[in-house]
């Protein structure tokens, strides 16, 4: 690895971490769409800033772009408050308007400024090491590294200082307000951090792909943990994984770095979505299947229980007629009950064992009383009661 390669991976990783932190809270607040809006509507801020400074990484440009990002949020909320349209519609109205102002500004002045839309939307990580900060003859490293580094440090400090406030206002806005933690201040704080991060990252990965870095790692982490701190940590790790693996895939495929990073993030999400222990698709399908089986088993046991003194009702052959099940289904249920030692079959007549009887009675009792205390015992043994 040469130093440019290391620098690119370092920048990509820092961008990923800086995005994953606000991204985690945005995902939990169900505000993923707002990053889409912010990433587009910072464009007029960037363009105006660029007209003034002629420098894509000047602080004034970052300030103006952040302001137009926050303005998006204000406008969205303003439109939403009229009660005429829903939030998604409001977002859909605001950001294309701001974005198109940016586009028009660029195209009107395209002849005399060096700023093209592709660069803003897609960024080019590969060029990051060329734009360096030098003092006299000393090389201090790539400019983007400094920008995103400072944004990341600020974000981390804010996260550590206001973790408790962010958590309570994300979970329970009403409680936060009643405790004196103004949800509005925290909301706009988070929106400002998201905007600054988007602006700081657009140069490297492009304004659009910032969305992927904010949402995908957080969404992936959400599937794996039930602890906010772990979710932040996992989101960060997924972000870095995407950055490094994405860089090397781009290297191998000779393709766009930011495109490859996003693809890797997507693949990681897909894998986790399929295989996550509790929330994963496969595990959910398995659970549903088990629950279905258990419902059938319970129905069957209840039938036996209700007719414990009528042999006619408990004949294997009668199951198909009486409970109205297909043969396959009856066989599945019978073998499940047998396997769990809940029934015995003697001369084609089914009888509940003691274990089966106790279980059935417990289940009936739970279904009738619906007491919380009962369910805990059942949960350990059956998927059915795990919700």
């Amino acid at each position, binding site marked *: 690895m040469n130093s440019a390669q290391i620098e690119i991976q370092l920048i990509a990783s820092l961008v990923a971490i800086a995005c994953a932190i606000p991204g985690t809270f945005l995902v939990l607040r169900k505000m993923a769409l707002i990053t889409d809006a912010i990433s587009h509507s910072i464009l007029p801020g960037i363009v105006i800033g660029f007209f003034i400074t002629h420098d894509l990484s000047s602080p004034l440009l970052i300030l103006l772009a952040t302001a137009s990002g926050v303005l998006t949020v204000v406008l969205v909320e303003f439109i939403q408050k009229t009660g005429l349209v829903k939030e998604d519609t409001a977002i859909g109205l605001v950001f294309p308007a701001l974005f198109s102002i940016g586009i028009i500004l660029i195209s009107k002045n395209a002849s005399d400024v060096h700023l093209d839309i592709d660069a803003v939307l897609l960024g080019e990580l590969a060029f990051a090491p060329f734009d360096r900060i030098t003092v006299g003859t000393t090389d201090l490293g790539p400019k983007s590294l400094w920008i995103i580094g400072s944004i990341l440090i600020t974000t981390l400090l804010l996260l550590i200082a206001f973790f408790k406030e962010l958590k309570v206002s994300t979970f329970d806005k009403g409680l936060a307000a*009643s405790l004196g933690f103004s949800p509005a201040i925290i909301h706009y704080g988070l929106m400002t951090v998201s905007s600054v991060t988007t602006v700081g990252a657009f140069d490297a990965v492009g304004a659009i792909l910032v969305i992927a870095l904010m949402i995908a790692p957080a969404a992936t982490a959400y599937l794996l943990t039930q602890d906010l701190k772990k979710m932040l940590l996992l989101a960060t790790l997924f972000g870095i994984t995407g950055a490094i693996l994405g860089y090397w895939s781009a290297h191998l495929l000779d393709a766009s770095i930011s495109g490859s990073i996003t693809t890797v993030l997507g693949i990681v999400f897909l894998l986790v979505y399929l295989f996550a222990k509790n929330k994963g698709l496969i595990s959910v399908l398995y659970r549903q299947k088990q629950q279905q089986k258990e419902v059938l088993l319970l129905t069957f046991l209840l039938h036996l229980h209700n007719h414990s003194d009528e042999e006619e009702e408990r004949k294997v052959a009668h199951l198909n007629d009486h409970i109205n099940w297909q043969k396959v289904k009856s066989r599945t249920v019978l073998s499940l009950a047998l396997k769990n030692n809940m029934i015995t079959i003697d001369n084609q007549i089914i009888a509940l064992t003691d274990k089966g009887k106790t279980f059935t009675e417990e289940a009936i009792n739970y279904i009738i009383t619906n*007491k*919380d205390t009962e369910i805990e015992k059942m949960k350990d043994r059956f998927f059915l009661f795990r919700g």
Partner: protein
Amino acid sequence: MEDQIAVKIDDLTVAYDYKPVLWDIDLAIPEGVLMAIVGPNGAGKSTLIKAILDILKPIAGSVEIYGKPYKKNRALVAYVPQKGSVDWDFPTTALDVVMMGTYGSLGWIKRPGQKEKKAALEALEKVGMLSFKSRQISQLSGGQQQRIFLARALVQNASIYFMDEPFQGVDATTEKAIINILKELRKAGKTVVVVHHDLQTVPEYFDWVTFLNVKKIATGPVKDIFNDDNLTKTYGINYKVAITQ
């Protein structure tokens, strides 16, 4: 009983989009009562609590907690929002939710420590949920979630408790457990204000009641004012249907 007034509300009007949901409410809640706020859907019951707690800004009127604005006496107040107002899939545990009750006394930036954790564990024990402390909140039943919310209010160690429909969607055992805790709070001299739906249980659970339907209809001891006249004024002629619902 001419007690001290815990909460005093004067000329309170709250509007959503210029449509008043609470109109010119005057209400004095005496210290040490266990009060139900009753009224039909859309009567502004939750809104009243939110306006008292500074969550909503009224367009007119004032609220005083022991003679001072809410902002000055925040520490005296605990709040239990409607269970449905939060996302129970949030990645956190029962203990952590209860700890949130301590955040108010900590203020900005300061983090909860051992003292706060101990208080939270005690509150969990009081509501019979100690063995669930590490359980992820989405894995709790509706009744258990409500108990967690109650524990979170208890940990605030307040003088006044506001609860928004704490009996909504809970099983009978939890309902009994909650009302016992509320009665204990009253015994300890606390003031408890509950948005309540089930008119049948009002005389059994509460000693004070406020009838609300955009305007205040009546407020006072249950034994004096919980009658057909006020019920009709609040719910309209078919209040008996409302009772049996």
